[in-house]
């Protein structure tokens, strides 16, 4: 049970009221660029509020990464309400731990998420064409057809770490739940009367079970597909080495990527010596190493948002694979990325006695 309120008209008008009534000075929210196309935007009090698209089911960039761009060098100097999906909030928490973002002065409005469509549907088709079916599915507590594979198998669609939660699944009109002091401060500033109620509907709770089952199925089918060196080559062999997956990855924050460094420029002898051992050699080398190496860097923090898969021009199911491997390593370290700031990144901490089965 929490303090809740229905949105006055719609979610957009609630967000505008946050600006108008001085609860915050800036709003961070997806906004329509043109019909059916969205991008994240920072909108000041006196700015244009037309075309807010908080619930439009596309993720042009992981919002957590976008927030890190304007909080990397320090906290924002005025109150900003940020509208984020659950995996975007979790990314933001991970980026704070990685010293790439700052939460001060941010009011996190977390959306209950029905998933997002692959970006291709926004660029090649009319994004809005899918809207009706999507909203209908959400109302009924179903998984919408055609969303990102990882979204269909996401059982963390109820936001964690938000000040205000926007519940949409199983509802005609979104409901707000004010979960923290900061959230309640917003409610009082815009003069919303709250009453005690459940944050999420029973349809949402039922969907949780469906999606947990989807997740288990996805993980096992992915692992069956990428099995052994043969499976690895089958899936990653066609990689063209554009590194788009890492460019759009919200966790891969390094400005100078290790895998693009001179470490991987070899002397000619490295190639010719290898040729003595092998019948032929793939050039450029290290295409597969890049993916496995990237896993060692970010699988512990991967929230399976699906950006990498959308960005892959070769249709490699990157996000599904990272979700599967991420699930295993996160379980190993009993770590859930984005669950809380107090949980330390697995590779920056240790317990004196652990993993004793590895030792001799």
């Amino acid at each position, binding site marked *: 049970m929490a303090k809740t309120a229905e949105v006055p008209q719609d979610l957009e008008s609630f967000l505008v009221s946050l600006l108008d009534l001085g609860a915050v000075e800036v709003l961070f929210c997806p906004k329509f660029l043109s019909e059916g196309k969205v991008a994240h935007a920072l909108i000041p009090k006196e700015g244009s509020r037309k075309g807010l698209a908080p619930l439009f089911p596309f993720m042009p960039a992981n919002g957590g990464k976008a927030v890190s761009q304007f909080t990397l060098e320090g906290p924002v100097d005025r109150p900003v309400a940020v509208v984020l999906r659950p995996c975007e909030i979790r990314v933001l928490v991970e980026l704070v731990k990685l010293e790439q973002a700052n939460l001060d002065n941010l009011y996190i409005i977390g959306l209950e998420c029905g998933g997002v469509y692959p970006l291709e549907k926004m660029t090649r088709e009319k994004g809005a064409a899918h809207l009706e079916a999507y909203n209908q599915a959400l109302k009924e507590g179903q998984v919408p057809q055609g969303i990102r594979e990882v979204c269909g198998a996401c059982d963390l669609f109820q936001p964690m770490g938000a000040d205000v939660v926007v519940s949409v699944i199983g509802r005609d009109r979104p409901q707000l739940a004010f979960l923290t002091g900061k959230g309640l401060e917003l409610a009082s500033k815009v003069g919303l009367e709250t009453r005690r109620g459940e944050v999420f509907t029973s349809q949402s709770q039922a969907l949780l079970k469906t999606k947990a089952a989807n997740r288990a199925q996805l993980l096992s089918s992915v*692992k069956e597909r990428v099995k052994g060196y043969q499976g690895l080559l089958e899936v990653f*062999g066609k990689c063209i080495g554009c590194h788009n997956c890492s460019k759009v990855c919200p966790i891969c924050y390094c400005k100078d990527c290790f895998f693009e460094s001179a470490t991987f420029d070899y002397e000619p002898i490295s190639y010719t010596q290898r040729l003595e051992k092998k019948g032929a050699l*793939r050039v450029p080398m290290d295409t597969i190493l890049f993916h496995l190496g990237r896993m*060692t860097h970010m699988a512990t923090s991967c929230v399976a948002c699906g950006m990498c898969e959308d960005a892959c021009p070769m249709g490699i199911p990157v996000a599904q694979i990272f979700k599967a491997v991420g699930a295993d*390593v996160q379980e190993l370290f009993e770590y859930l990325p984005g669950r809380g700031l107090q949980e330390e990144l697995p590779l920056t901490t*240790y317990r004196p006695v652990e993993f004793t089965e590895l030792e001799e």
Partner: protein
Amino acid sequence: MSEPFEPKIVGFLCYWCSYTAADLAGVSRMKYPPNLRVIRVMCSSRVDPVFIIKALLDGADGVLVAGCHPGDCHYQKGNYYARRKVALTKKILESLGLGPERVKLSWIAASEGPKFAQVAKEFTEEIRRLGPNPARAEIFL
């Protein structure tokens, strides 16, 4: 006719303990198989998981990471981080069905020459049992 399988194992040994132990095994004239190719690192935590994966993709049949016993790290806690890195690497390999048993972590103190010889022997035997790394044959890795 193919030659009999001789494992090639890459061993990352920490300067302060395990490398010294290997030295001790040598000067004590202990016998151990020559399959281990030693790379000295200043600390076991210097071993980036990428090193291990690179060795395996390039066809190494096994990778040994060895350092000071827990609590004895020259840099206080490097080996604790190394343990987590090896755990992570093995888990990723397991997840993708790439044979995590080809990676081994061992604590060998500077005075433990006989233990070094023992570990080298046992790990070589273990890898011999597993057979050649299937990555050897894959030209597109």
